């Protein structure tokens, strides 16, 4: 490295630190850059941790700067290394690993840590947090929270602010019961007034099913080894086995303070983002205190980063809206807008919660029963505060008016509602390029336009590339309008949104119509005629659809199948497969058991296991052995590998059980006999249980049948007890087993024809609505019942046991091993 270059050291490799470096590089700032971060990763989008916890975003999707980025910009990154001291005179930083690093310019971006109030039992002396107690700040926090929650049942989240609410929602994705305990009198009291807070609480309780305790001061975490509950000041005890503390944050200022910088609540900075009285030390992000303000949101740090970068590299670049004279940019503070990232629960708040002066105007609308509360507060004709709960429709417009101090419509109601006609949205064409559109991820209109000009013409694509709209999501409508504007009309529909498979630009209904119209019976012909490019990730979904539509006439191209369907077994982590023979209704015979035992013994099957689906799994079978094993078993496939009809679990029912009021076993066997192997958009798992004690778990199946007194049967649909737990909705009650069999076929066929690819019934039924499904399937409101039955009968007739396909491989090397490597064919190497 040429020593002529100035050495820039950054402490803290989080959102502010990395963003600032990006801004410096954008200004061609010429430094030897070294970054220290005590997290073991590159820079990731912390705000997305809520989405990761909620399971709507994948970990890999949240990285903003992966390690290659640092390399490409030859930045020396020390991950997992904590800086402990700064020597301002010798201009060195000293790290926990003993190293000393010299700097000419220093940037402190140490962010904040979770604040843990003094609660008895939160910590175990010497061993950090009590196991079962978590905070929610880093990727590691999130990972360990998920890992632990999965194995437990009841969680309490302490803190009813933004973070606490998002944590509570996310945890529901991993365990059954979540309670939110908030010390103040109403939720999000930092942002919302009491009416808004109460409205939000009702929605959280009724819509999400999270219990909320307000005015609850947690005094103790109970349980010696494992957490058993928490105790409140009023003596109340709430049972739980997981505790998440989201009670606020504290800026990480210790290092700065010990090194002699001016620290109050945060590290004090001037308008140039320099530490007070320091010429060469800058501070940015949540650890900075500017004009008495310490921020806890990302939006301010985008502005701070621009100002800092301009000053440290002495160059402004066009379109960075940093004001300032003599080349020095100044930061004047940010106006905060808060949004809640909880799907289905809209909350946006900015500025004042309630009027403060006598002459402040308040326009307020409340409809508690539908969970809506809105207000705006106006001072001297300018918007100084707004709250939206339950309806974010006007968020974008209000944020603009608030941040820019725009003049407001004479009819104030227009601020809260779209009163007919096109809402008075100013055209995106007039927006300045550097105007920030996505505050969560700091994306400007210019960046969106550049992305579109770069050839990306779908809203989804632009969102993926720029990350705009991927935080709280409220800017999506605006992003959409900008993309449409930038693409000058030629904007393409957003694939991910509505397409049945990504590779063919049509929703399922259209796709099916087109397939029929053109008589497309093979996957390759669908691509050729409708899709253009062949797409690996779309093949499986299309194969399933075509098979459903054409039955016997379907032209089966094996490459369209996922490996499981090519070899009729489920691939496992080491490339071997599992073999699950059919065992209708979970009923078997000594003879069958013997045969399974002998086969397992003869082939030294690594594991024989009873499955959760009431049958037997032979695990760890090499691909090339599958046909032989099937032959020796000589039993039909149990389809434990396909997106298809799987099992019908049953209980012993009236034949044996004291309580049985219906022959659940016989009905279960009959159902599996008839619908075995039928493929669909997702797995179809059924159960029949002999009485409401529900020993066969029928309430939580895609379709579950429950015998009730008087020879009647209840049919439940859309239940699940897998990644999602949902009690099925009662479709109807019938008098005979035959009716159950018919309605089952009709329901499954309706699902097969209308469910999206990989959309299980637990998602499909609520989406379409049980009333509509009942109308179609039970009351034949649309007059299609007969057709559904007929098409299902065809599918049933077309059933062939795939395990019969074994004498001759269907394709060359169908069962040839791909790994692990007992290899054929061996190809000699000639040097």
């Amino acid at each position, binding site marked *: 490295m040429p020593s002529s270059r100035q050495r820039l050291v950054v402490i803290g490799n989080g959102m502010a630190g990395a963003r600032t470096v990006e801004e410096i590089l954008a200004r061609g700032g010429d430094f030897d850059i070294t970054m220290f971060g005590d997290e073991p990763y590159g820079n990731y989008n912390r705000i997305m941790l809520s989405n990761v916890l909620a399971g709507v975003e994948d970990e890999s999707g949240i*990285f903003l700067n992966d390690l290659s980025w640092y390399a490409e910009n030859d930045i020396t990154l020390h991950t997992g290394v904590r800086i402990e001291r700064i020597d301002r005179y010798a201009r060195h930083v000293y790290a926990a690993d003993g190293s000393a690093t010299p700097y000419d310019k220093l940037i402190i971006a140490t962010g904040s840590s979770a604040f843990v109030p003094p609660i008895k039992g939160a910590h175990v002396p010497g061993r950090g947090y009590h196991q079962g107690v978590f905070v929610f700040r880093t990727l590691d926090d999130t990972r360990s929270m998920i890992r632990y929650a999965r194995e437990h049942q009841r969680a309490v989240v302490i803190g009813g602010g933004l973070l606490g609410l998002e944590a509570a929602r996310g945890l529901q994705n991993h365990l059954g019961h979540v309670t939110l305990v908030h010390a103040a009198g109403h939720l999000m009291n930092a942002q919302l007034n009491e009416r808004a807070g109460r409205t939000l609480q009702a929605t959280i309780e009724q819509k999400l099913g999270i219990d909320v305790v307000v005015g609850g001061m947690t005094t103790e975490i109970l349980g010696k080894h494992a957490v058993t509950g928490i105790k409140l000041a009023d003596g109340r005890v709430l049972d739980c086995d997981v505790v998440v503390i989201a009670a606020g944050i504290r800026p990480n200022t210790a290092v700065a303070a010990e090194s002699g910088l001016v620290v109050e609540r945060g590290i004090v900075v001037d308008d140039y983002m320099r530490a007070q009285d320091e010429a060469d030390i800058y501070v940015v992000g949540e650890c900075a205190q500017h004009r008495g303000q310490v921020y806890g949101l990302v939006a301010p740090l985008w502005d701070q980063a621009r100002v800092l970068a301009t000053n440290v590299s002495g160059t402004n670049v066009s379109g960075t809206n940093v004001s300032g004279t003599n080349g020095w940019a100044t930061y004047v503070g940010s106006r905060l807008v808060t949004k809640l990232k909880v799907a289905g629960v809209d909350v946006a708040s900015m500025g004042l919660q309630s009027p403060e002066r006598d002459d402040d105007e308040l326009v307020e609308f409340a409809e508690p029963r539908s969970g809506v509360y809105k207000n705006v507060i106006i001072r001297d004709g300018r918007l100084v505060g707004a709250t939206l709960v339950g309806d974010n429709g006007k968020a974008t417009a209000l944020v603009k008016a608030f941040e820019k101090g725009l003049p407001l419509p004479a009819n104030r109601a227009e601020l809260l509602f779209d009163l007919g006609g096109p809402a008075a949205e100013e055209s995106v064409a007039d927006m300045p390029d550097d105007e920030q559109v996505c505050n969560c991820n700091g994306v400007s209109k210019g960046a969106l336009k550049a992305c579109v000009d770069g050839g990306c013409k779908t809203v989804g694509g632009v969102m993926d590339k720029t990350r705009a709209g991927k935080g709280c999501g409220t800017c999506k409508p605006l992003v959409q309008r900008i993309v449409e504007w930038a693409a000058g009309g030629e904007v393409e529909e957003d694939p991910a949104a509505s397409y049945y498979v990504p590779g063919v630009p049509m929703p399922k209904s259209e796709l099916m119509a087109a397939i029929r119209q053109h008589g497309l019976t093979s996957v390759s012909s669908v691509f050729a005629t409708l899709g253009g490019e*062949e797409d*690996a990730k779309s093949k499986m979904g299309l194969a399933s659809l075509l098979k459903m539509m054409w039955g016997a006439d379907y032209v089966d191209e094996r*490459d369209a199948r996922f490996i499981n369907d090519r070899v009729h077994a489920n691939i496992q982590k080491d*490339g071997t497969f599992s073999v699950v023979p059919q065992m209708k209704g979970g009923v078997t015979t000594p003879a069958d058991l013997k045969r399974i035992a002998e086969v397992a013994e003869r082939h030294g099957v690594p594991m024989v296991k009873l499955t959760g689906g009431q049958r037997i799994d032979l695990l760890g079978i090499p691909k090339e052995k599958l046909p032989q094993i099937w032959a020796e078993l000589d039993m039909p496939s149990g389809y434990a590998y396909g997106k298809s009809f799987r099992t019908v679990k049953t209980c012993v029912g009236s034949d044996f059980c004291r309580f049985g009021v219906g022959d659940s076993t016989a009905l279960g066997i009959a159902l599996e006999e008839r619908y075995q192997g039928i493929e669909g958009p997702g797995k179809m798992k059924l159960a029949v249980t002999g009485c409401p004690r529900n020993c066969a778990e029928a309430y939580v199946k895609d379709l579950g049948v429950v015998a009730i007194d008087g020879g009647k049967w209840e049919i439940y649909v859309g239940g699940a007890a897998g990644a999602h737990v949902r009690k099925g909705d009662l479709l109807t009650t019938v008098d005979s087993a035959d009716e159950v069999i018919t309605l089952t076929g009709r329901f499954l066929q309706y699902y097969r024809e209308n469910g999206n690819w990989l959309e299980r019934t637990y998602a499909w039924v609520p989406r379409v609505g049980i009333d509509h499904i009942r109308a179609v399937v039970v009351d034949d409101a649309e007059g299609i019942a007969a057709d559904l039955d007929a098409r299902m009968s065809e599918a049933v007739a077309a059933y062939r046991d795939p395990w019969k396909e074994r004498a001759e491989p269907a394709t060359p090397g169908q069962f040839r091993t791909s*790994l692990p490597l007992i290899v054929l064919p061996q*190809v000699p190497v000639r040097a």
Partner: protein
Amino acid sequence: MNLGSINDIPLGEGRTFAVGSEMVAVFRLRDGSVRALSAVCPHKGGPLADGQIDLKQVVCPLHLNAWDLTTGCSLSGQSPVTVYPVRVDNDSLILEM
């Protein structure tokens, strides 16, 4: 060296060959061309030859990460796989190594 007949690989699928100590997955694209990659998925050792392909990518069957069949670069943030020059010479598969 000669890996045998192109017809040993069904159209649109892949098969694994052991070339000395190397494991090579050879794919037969639907446009008739062929590609060869090291057979073991860098993510967690999945069998790439069991993956689904199109003209551009192969998708590993275990965790659905994807790799560009021509460059070997990952399309989902994984480390790259080795690509081997391979061609069809009247019906036989010729791999250069």
